[in-house]
């Protein structure tokens, strides 16, 4: 909302510079976005519909400065003829339209507005149309009550009906657009068709232009939710709808219509018929809220003197009884509870005056969230093994899904994506991670990245990692599986399921092409939910060996189809009680080895916690291992 200070000065004395006024409003009322010369750009919060007009702002400034507001004098000279004899109004849905006033003015001279009026509208960023339309806009900005003017002679029949639109009804609105109306939208209709979308915009066919002679002014109250819903559905917002959707001051309709009628009479001449047509009288009982001073002091953490509380409330237009029943002024319909009143007191009193008081209270032992704790630890583990952490978007689109063969139906779909890459909520961290790996691989020789984040449908926490490296596939696969094992080992899982490792693989040449990566790529993804629930802090300690260990290297040639796993199992089984460690160090194929064979080399470590082992004891075990390997895997010892 723009506030031209010159206009404000029509109603209240301002002895502050624009900057000082802005500062005052900023610390007591609402944010000032910008001070632009004489005009303040205010960001009025949704609870302050009363400040959506120059007079409303004058009232606010009056509370803050103590200067009085001078309300404009409204003098209408009415003719003897009753307005109700010319026009009838029927409200069919009083829930959505609790009040509708119509003023009838005949023989007006529609023409150019005087300079002062044009300037006022211009300062609000609105262009002048003609004197009648300008007056309705002027009163909207001045008082905050949206008005509308119909050309009486363009209406079919002499009756306005306020009702819900019928299926199939349309309206060509003032913005020259045709809108299809729906049953839950409130419209004003003449004998034939809708002539206005209630509270949002009038129809183009009944607009007031230079040929207009007779007009009907409308000043009404429309249900805020209904106006908002209709405006959203039609994609049509206006100065009028923004005001209606925030609430209303029930006393304003009549003041505003009279103000507009008086101005029409003054600027356009014409005969104002007697009385406004008003089919319903709105009851405006004053709401009261009981203010407990103890509660106020408790909530704010400061003791404010009762006289001061009262003074602040009165300055804002509240009436305060001796028993602290506070009557709410008509323009503050959004005040609902005692906290609302306390806010009024607090902001005017000044937050800067609150004392510095730190929390005090019972010290409750903190519950540690296991998931959050391990999430942090896992990130640290990944960092320790040399991975960089990245954060990706939670959504992706076809572009990221296609290379992974992900099916759309397994995803939560975003209803209103801004671009195609936001269509689906991710069910895996890998597509975005591989994308990032690909982009970075152009800048770095080696990329090691990970992400810890949520996937959706169902929503659960995942860890995924990618390595892009110049090393060969076998080495890379060993590296990435080593990292997965390291992380899992550090979590001391009470149970391990291979299904928790969702992915652990290398990209094949075709996939690498799709991701545009030349080097070897390894990736993994782990389901953290289940793993974390099984994680434990380690409390293990193994005493250091008292006696020296004996080590032996072994190199065997086995058929191609033998896996290291098979070798490892046999060595474990036949290694005896003193075998402490098996360390693989080489896999070899090629020169010196037959074509259908390969060679494994590994290192064995033996020790006892009670004595130094004799060399021949170890040799004996080595013999057994060799024999078992030979028998079960057709292994030959290489020397």
């Amino acid at each position: 909302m723009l506030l031209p200070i010159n206009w404000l000065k029509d109603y209240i004395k301002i002895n502050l510079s624009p900057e000082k006024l802005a500062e005052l409003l900023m610390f007591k009322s609402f944010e000032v976005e910008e001070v632009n010369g004489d005009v303040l750009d205010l960001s009025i919060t949704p609870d302050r519909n009363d400040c959506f007009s120059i007079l409303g702002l004058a009232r606010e400034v009056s509370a803050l400065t103590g200067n009085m507001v001078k309300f404009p004098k409204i003098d209408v000279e009415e003719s003897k003829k009753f307005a109700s004899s010319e026009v009838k109004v029927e409200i069919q849905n009083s829930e959505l339209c609790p009040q509708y006033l119509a003023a009838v003015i005949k023989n007006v001279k529609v023409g150019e507005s005087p300079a002062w009026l044009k300037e006022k509208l211009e300062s609000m960023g609105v262009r002048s149309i003609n004197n009648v339309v300008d007056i309705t806009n002027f009163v909207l900005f001045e008082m905050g009550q949206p008005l509308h003017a119909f050309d009486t002679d363009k209406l079919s029949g002499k009756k306005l009906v306020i009702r819900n639109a019928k299926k199939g009804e349309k309206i060509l609105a003032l913005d020259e657009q045709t809108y299809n109306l729906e049953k839950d939208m409130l419209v004003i209709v003449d004998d034939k068709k809708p002539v206005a979308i209630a509270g949002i915009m009038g129809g183009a066919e009944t607009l007031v232009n230079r040929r207009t002679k007779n007009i009907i002014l409308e000043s009404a109250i429309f249900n805020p939710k209904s106006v908002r819903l209709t405006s959203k559905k039609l994609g049509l917002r206006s100065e009028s709808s923004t005001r209606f959707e925030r609430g209303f001051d029930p006393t304003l309709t009549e003041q505003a219509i009279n103000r507009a009628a008086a101005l029409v009479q003054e600027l356009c001449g014409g005969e104002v018929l007697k009385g406004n047509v008003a089919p319903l009288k709105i009851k405006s009982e004053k709401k009261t809220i009981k203010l407990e001073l103890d509660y106020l002091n408790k909530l704010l953490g400061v003791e404010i003197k009762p006289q001061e509380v009262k003074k602040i409330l009165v300055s804002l237009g509240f009436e305060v009884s001796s028993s602290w029943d506070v009557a709410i002024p008509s323009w503050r319909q959004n005040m609902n509870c005692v906290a609302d009143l306390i806010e009024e007191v607090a902001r005017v009193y000044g937050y800067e005056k609150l004392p510095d008081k730190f929390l005090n209270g019972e010290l409750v032992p903190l519950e540690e969230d296991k998931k959050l704790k391990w999430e942090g630890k896992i990130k640290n583990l990944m960092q320790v093994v040399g991975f960089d952490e990245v954060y990706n978007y939670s959504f992706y689109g076809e572009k990221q899904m296609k290379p992974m063969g992900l099916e759309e139906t397994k995803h939560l779909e975003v209803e209103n994506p801004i671009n195609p890459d936001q269509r689906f909520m991710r069910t895996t961290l890998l597509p975005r991670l591989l994308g990032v790996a690909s982009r970075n691989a152009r800048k770095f020789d080696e990329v090691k990245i990970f992400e810890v984040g949520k996937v959706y449908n169902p929503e659960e926490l995942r860890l995924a990692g990618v390595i892009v490296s110049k090393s060969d596939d076998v080495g890379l696969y060993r590296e990435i599986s080593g990292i997965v094992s390291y992380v899992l080992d550090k979590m001391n899982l009470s149970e391990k399921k291979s299904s928790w490792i969702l992915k652990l693989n290398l990209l094949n040449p075709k996939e690498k092409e799709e991701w545009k990566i030349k080097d070897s790529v390894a990736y993994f993804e782990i389901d953290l939910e289940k793993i974390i629930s099984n994680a434990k802090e380690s409390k293990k300690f193994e005493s250091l060996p008292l006696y020296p260990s004996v080590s032996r290297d072994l190199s065997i040639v086995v058929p191609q189809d033998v896996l290291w796993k098979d070798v490892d199992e046999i060595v474990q089984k036949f290694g005896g009680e003193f075998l402490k460690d098996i360390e693989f160090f080489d896999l070899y194929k090629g020169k010196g080895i037959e074509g259908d064979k390969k060679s494994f080399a590994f290192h064995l470590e033996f020790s006892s916690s009670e004595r130094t082992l004799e060399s021949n004891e170890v040799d004996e075990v080595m013999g057994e291992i060799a024999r078992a390997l030979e028998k079960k895997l057709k292994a030959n010892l290489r020397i």
Partner: protein
Amino acid sequence: MKTNLNKIKKDVLELVNQAKDLKSLEKIETQFLGRKDGEITKILRGLKKLTVKQKKEIGPLANALKKEIKEMLKEKKNNLVGKRTDRGFDYTLPPKKPEVGHLHPITQFTKKVTDVFVSMGFEIVDGPEVETEEYNFDLLNIPAEHPSRDMWDTYYIKKSRNEALPRLLRTHTSSVQLRAMEKRKPPVRLIVPGRVFRHEAVDAGHETNFYQCEGLVIDENVSMANLISTLRVFVKKIFGEKAKIRVRPSYFPFVEPGIEVDMSCLICDSKGCSACKQTGWLEMLGAGMVHPKVLENMKVDSKKYTGFAFGLGIDRFMMLYYGINDIRLSYNGDLRFIKQF
């Protein structure tokens, strides 16, 4: 004798300056400090022939010079070794950077934030990112078709056939307040760091997903003064004693009174710069006293208990902390960015 010492000093200085390798240094050492014929050695040895008065004068001078020459030689030796031409390879090659991983600055900064609050007795809580309208809006006193809903641009999830209620991507971590209070009773002090979503066009200052930290305190005598003090302590712990805050009235449907907290601009020392739009202050967070309706929605007796809540943008704080000017850097995965932290 004294002039002799001065000359020696000058000679040594010259020779040392000219020396190009350790060998020449050894030669200088022998020439002046050699046990047999070193020039200084000879002077010191000749002291006993002098008078007591001369001894007292020359002795200390000669000893001081001896010490000085030793220092000079040592210094020069270090210099020569520093060049390390004598070790067979170039020791001045640039050091190799150790290969280490890097945690994302949001991770690091979130830890900083949570550490401060944990030290003040706050518990860290987590909640779902795909939320219902009920938790994200309704229970927070943001009813459907209320203009305050415009304060949050929202991503919605397409309804599946058997779903009755619309789901959305949470627009704030405030939704977790209500979920947390289903399992807790006052007194509570909790914070909720986490990812949130806004249906907005992306630019240097706005992202579609970013991080927020919500705070909630409920107890019998929690006040606005407590809220402001807590936030003041927080800002000082993160940004140092110099950081000041100021409070302005504001509006968020789930708090009443609601406030906006600005922090003194640390980029320009509050003198006014482009970051603070020449005001010297930066908008940092929204806060307020928990609305009685929201307390009731949490099944907390709003007559007995009061509470405060605040929500701060982790990205914004983090960017200010490191001097980062584009929020998008956090989410595009460029390792040239990540590796700096």
